[in-house]
């Protein structure tokens, strides 16, 4: 699984209030949420972010609330993927659950500049910076997360599971002890 797009760089410890302030949590529509995404952090960011862009963040991206509205707002902006040094755990689960791929990559944040052309390989766990001819190695996303993404998120995954109840997801999951949150 690969995503290609322009980099949009943000800082460390970006919290869920910075991603989508709670005063806008009166809707769960990704488009409506996107109109207020990052409003208190940098109001110009939502205008600069275009479809297919890749958000590159520092440490602990998504700390704070369990609001799924946070990854939904980012998805609503058209962001294809988020690459960060690390993610807060509830945000990590929520993003994969709604079909927004994330990649943990310790070196990308220091190397990437805003606007760089990036190629993110989730299976290999690597980010290629096409502008600077650099490669940053990260963690491949766990197999279970890949299956979630292939199903379009948790909704699709559960639907598929319910269609074929004989197949135990647990046995499969336990065979891959990995970095899921």
């Amino acid at each position, binding site marked *: 699984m690969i995503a290609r797009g322009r980099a949009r760089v943000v800082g460390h*410890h970006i*919290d869920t*209030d*910075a991603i989508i*302030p*709670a*005063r806008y*949590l*009166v*809707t*769960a529509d990704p488009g409506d949420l996107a109109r207020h995404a990052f*409003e*208190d*952090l940098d109001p110009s960011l939502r205008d600069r972010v275009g479809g297919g862009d890749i958000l590159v963040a520092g*440490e*602990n991206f998504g*700390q*704070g*609330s*369990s*609001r*799924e*509205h946070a990854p939904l707002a980012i998805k609503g902006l058209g962001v294809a993927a988020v690459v960060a040094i*690390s993610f*807060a*755990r*509830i945000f990590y*689960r*929520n993003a994969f*659950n*709604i079909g927004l791929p994330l990649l943990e990559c310790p070196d990308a944040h220091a190397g990437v500049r805003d606007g760089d052309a990036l190629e993110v390989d989730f299976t290999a766990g690597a980010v290629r910076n096409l502008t600077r001819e650099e490669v940053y190695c990260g963690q491949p996303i*766990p197999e*279970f997360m890949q299956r979630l993404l292939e199903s379009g*998120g*948790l*909704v699709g995954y*559960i*639907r598929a599971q*319910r269609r074929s109840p004989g197949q135990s*997801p*647990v046995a499969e*999951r*336990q065979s*891959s*002890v*990995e*970095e*899921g*949150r």
Partner: protein
Amino acid sequence: MTEKILAAHAGAASVRPGEIVDCRVDFVFANDITAPLAIQEFQKMGGNSVFDPDRVAFVLDHYVPNKDIPSANQAKSTRDFVRAHGLPYFYDIGRAGIAHVLLAEEGFVGPGDVFIGADSHTCNHGALGAFATGVGSSDLAAALVTGRLWLRVPETVRYVLTGRPRPWVTGKDLVLVIIGTIGVDGARYGAMEFAGETLSYLTMDERFSITNMAVEAGAKNGIMEPDARTLEWVTPRARRSFTVVRPDPDAAYADVKTIEVNRLEPVVAAPSSPGNVVSVRDATGVRVDQCFIGTCTNGRLEDLRIAARVLAGRRVHRDTRLLIIPATPAIYRQALEEGLIQIFLDAGAAVSTSTCGPCIGGHMGVLGEGEVCVSTSSRNFVGRMGHKTSRVYLSNAAVAAATAVTGTLTHPADVAGELVPA
């Protein structure tokens, strides 16, 4: 302890950190912000009925009483779902309180449980010796359909608290000190197991405010071994049988950290991170526009009692306003019976019906441009309580009350002298 609880719910003899397990859940809940999305996902998943109506609660607590038409519609969609599915545990305006405080009070969580909530502060319930964690709406929907949830077994760090807290130092100060020491991602993904003799000096209310804020250090859950006080608190409330789970004497921990509490002073987390912790003495004098006592972290009876001890016979400073929101109707009623509400009204505080409101900058106490608030809540991120230039200091209830009296950040001893045991 966390591993033992997860193993018991995954049907495994033991589990190890890093392993992904499929767990049976004992109870799930969602609030008025997370429920509408969870309901939508539940329907998309093809859910016809919830896995067990007796193990599900919906609590309207964030935007209640509804602040505008969209929030009223969110509450309505939750109400409609509850009625359509005939769910017995629905807490609507007037009977609702802040979910974490309410659901523990109502006995929906017991030691050894796996308790899942679509709200990050669900980790609150670890004070009862349960595994409790917050998830998003999709996870909640999946749990509503299947009664199960996948979880990665966290590594546990044990925090051993030693010594007796000084007067005016509460559980809130202890958890802030820990977050200040390890940082807002210091426990990222892990389990925080709190232990040590200090816990024996803390009321259940204070213990809840410690596990409540585990998420502010990035943790998946915070947990405490039940003692006599825990069992005395939970037994008369419990709606389901429970089995106490204790850590093995030879339990393996990723790390053990010791915190000496007997020299600590009350602290605040200064803007704009819960990890930016300094002694109140080092922040004294900051001009404050609003003080807020409430929330799932510190809107409990003990918080109101200690605030009343500071406020009794005193007035809120004319350039400051004080909001007090008891976390549940039962706490409100008890505060009324004890005369605390009278003290608050006499002091010039505004006392309101239970809601998360101001904590999330939602309603009932939103901050304007450049305003400063001392709040007993758990988060002080940029824009959390209002305008993006407003600033929030997190504190215990006594500090918030003392600050309301003087109009500047104040150590409670400077207003109310030494705290003598009640």
